[in-house]
């Protein structure tokens, strides 16, 4: 019964909270710019509106174009089920799920990129090429970071890797974990196409990766893409919160609010980064991603020695 309640809270939270993070990022950025900014719930309004619209499909496209948003959303949703939010439990948890997490996100990327290529637009081809290219570097960094946690916890289950015992490892191997945390934050920015990798607020050539891939999607399809992107941001934010605040108070009334507060904090942090930084030149993006790989690798070296 307890697990059932826990899993229900997990699923409900996972499905409802993500758009709020995006709203919070926008609000933080507006605050920094001295504007009032859109309401916090703007993304919910946008999504509801999009799901009520019709879609226009290009004549060039095939079923792949329609499969892209579906697969993108499903994979992000499956990924969320793997992430423990409190107390080392996740609705979907098995030995080796860390690899499944990385690869299910890869599946989403595969179809998002194919859907972009399906339009035959040079812009979207460009976005697809960049998305899969940067993922080549982001994936090793992410998995290397997970390996550090696996080695520390002696388990290949995300839920066990990120449970309360991580707190004790912070005192013994804090340096490794700080490096992984830094690396993952870079990965969060890269995978979710945030500044300094990409600017989600502009269109066309200024936005070079994610937004350019979804230029031709409209209506519910676009809604699914945006929702999927929000879920993906939530996946990474949740991982970072569990890594940075692996506390387990034993009382769900404290644990859940703490977790939610943590994710909101991560969103604000993203907003701050977006406010104080400019987008990197495209040729410098791989350098930052390689730096993320190296951070994770050094984390492993410090741990193993």
């Amino acid at each position: 019964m307890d697990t059932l309640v826990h899993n229900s809270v997990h699923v409900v939270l996972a499905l409802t909270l993500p758009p709020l993070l995006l709203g919070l990022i926008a609000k933080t950025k507006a605050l920094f710019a001295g504007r009032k900014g859109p309401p916090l719930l703007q993304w919910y309004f946008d999504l509801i509106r999009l799901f009520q619209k019709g879609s226009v499909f290009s004549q060039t496209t095939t079923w792949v174009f329609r499969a892209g948003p579906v697969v993108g959303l499903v994979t992000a949703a499956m990924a969320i089920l793997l992430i423990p939010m409190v107390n080392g439990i996740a609705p979907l948890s098995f030995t080796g799920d860390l690899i499944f997490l990385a690869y299910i996100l890869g599946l989403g990327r595969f179809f998002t990129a194919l859907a972009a290529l399906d339009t035959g637009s040079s812009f979207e081809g460009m976005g697809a090429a960049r998305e899969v290219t940067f993922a080549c570097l982001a994936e090793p960094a992410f998995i290397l970071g997970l390996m550090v946690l696996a080695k520390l916890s002696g388990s290949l289950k995300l839920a066990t890797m990120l449970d309360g015992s991580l707190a004790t490892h912070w005192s013994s191997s804090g340096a490794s974990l700080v490096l992984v945390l830094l690396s993952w934050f870079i990965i969060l920015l890269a995978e979710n196409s945030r500044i300094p990798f990409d600017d989600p607020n502009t269109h066309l050539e200024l936005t070079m990766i994610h937004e350019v891939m979804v230029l031709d999607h409209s209506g519910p399809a676009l809604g699914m893409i945006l929702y999927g992107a929000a879920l993906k941001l939530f996946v990474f934010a949740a991982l970072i919160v569990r890594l940075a605040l692996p506390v387990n108070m034993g009382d769900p009334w404290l644990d859940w609010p703490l977790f939610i507060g943590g994710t909101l904090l991560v969103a604000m942090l993203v907003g701050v980064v977006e406010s104080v930084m400019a987008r990197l030149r495209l040729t410098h993006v791989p350098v930052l991603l390689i730096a993320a790989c190296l951070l994770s690798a050094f984390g492993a070296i410090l741990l193993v020695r």
Partner: protein
Amino acid sequence: MLLFLLAIATLLLGGGAAYLYRSSAKAATWVGAGTAVLGSVFGLVSAFQALAHGGTDGLRLAWSIPLGSFYIEIDPLTAFFMVPLFVLAPLAALYGGNYLYAYKEKKSLGPPWFLYNLLIAAIAMVFVARNGILFLMAWEIMALSAYFLVCFEHEKESVRKAGWAYLVASHIAFALLIVAFVLLGRGAGTLDFDQFPNAFSSRSIGWATGNTIWILAIIGFGLKAGFVPLHVWLPEAHPAAPSHVSAVMSGILIKTGLYGLLRLLTFDRTPAPWVGLTLAGLGLLTAFLGIAMALQQRDIKRVLAYSSIENMGLIAFSMGLGLWGMAQRLPEVALLGMTGALLHIWNHALMKGLLFLSAGSILHGTGTKDMERLGGLLRLMPFTGSTMILGSVALAALPPLNGFVSKWLMYMSLMKYSMATETAGSLMAHFGVGLLALIGGLSVVTFVRLTGIVLLGAPRDKTVTHVHESSKWMTGPMQLLALLCLVIAVIPQRTAGLFGGVLQQMIGWEGMHSSPEWEWPSASLEIAGAINAWTLLAVLTLAAVLWVRTRRFVGPQASTWGCGYVRPTVRMQYTGRSFVEMIAEHLLPRFLRPRTRREAPRGLFPAGKADFESQSPDPVDQKVYAPFFCYWADRFSRLRILQQGKVHVYLLYIMFTVVLALAWASIRTWFWGVS
């Protein structure tokens, strides 16, 4: 055993009959393809019987060849390799019947069908042979029949060159294997395989000889399997062959190299630890180089050939990890690694078979395999395109398909190893995981590019006309292979459940089979199957919901938004080359980068022509083999006087050699009394 002999007889007789009917394309096709299917069905039944029952079944006949005996046996390892052979071969034959028929005006179809059936029979004989001479004979027949099949379109110079590269590589491997078998035979006193394990365990094959045999085997069998740096023949030969032959070559033929290594492992149950480490390291190197080259190719069959190199690397890596786990007494690592390797052998046979057949269907339907001229084929060839996308997801090792399951086992094995050890070993394993992730990322790039450029968007070249979907005879086998991929993806535990006997042959030490870890992979395979099924179900459900929801809203069809530009053309689409520009020119190590030559337009009002050229030659071929062989070809040209081009002169050489060898033997007996 009787069924197996029946299978071989059917294949050989059918092949011969197809040759006799060569004057009629129709008769040769029906007889050749029909007997290939029939023989394979017999073979498949016998293989499944052996896998399910786990026992061995042998047959030994006297044979007049010195040291030779007609000794064949079906044990779990043999049956394990025969299953993908007899699954892929008939499907490729059905497909090939239609595929080759297009050449009926130009060529006689009797010889290719004779050779195809001979090839299948020879591969099967390689798997069952239990005598050195018999094995080597089957090996050579296999290599030669594949050579003639590669040279099917011998009027093209590129095909002749590819065949030549294949022939040379095969014979270097053959020479090394002869030496390996001589060493084995000298230690055991016979060339029958059943005596070899004793020779290893009784130390009559000592430490030095044993290691020499392993080195020779890794090079000899590695040449067949396409391990880097011995891979250069593979991306030439596989694309040159007719597509159904490419499928068999990439799906099964190169795996005879892996079979050889695993067979040697049944002789020497405890190889030196370096064997495992070497295979694992060589495998990772092979996988990385293979995929890094695959993503640069513009010939779709070359992409697939390089991807085969990558996958052979992954299998070798996983095998090596299994051996290393055995050497270190880590049952989980050993089991996961070996199971991953075995499952990937089956998976790769299905996936690569499927993709080569799709590529052949595209070549058949459009007349080109140059991806920069293709595009938008999914609309024109819906069946080929859809199965090709499915195969690409599988080959990119993504869930929910079978490629993910075996790759997942590899990751798990490496991670378990990292967690079980400290310091250097753990760190190496850590970085191995990072490299595997990088290889995974690059394979996603490769297959997004392959399917995205070829199947999606708009056709890039208006001269590619008359595009048509292939007939049911060609799409049917592809759909069946796709279905098999799905089946393995959903019930991998059942599939790997058949491997129990093979695993016992490969891995084992005292008390191993009673240890609690023995059962371990089956549980995680069950999870992998379930998670794949759930993912599939989730995608299908959401797609159905969306379809129902948006059916009423099917909006107006419009052209792709050109970002305000009103006259976009198909030539403005991203090409295969531009898709990997950043990886190929900035991220890959320098020696893997393509060679480019560009002449940019100059001045404010450029009038002259601009030019861009990019080539991705194989770095190992360019930097190592080409200079080496050119140097020696130059030196050896002085020996041309010996090469008369007359058969009787060559017979004379052979006679001289035999006389000299006999003389040497009698002199040895005479002087030193050794016989």
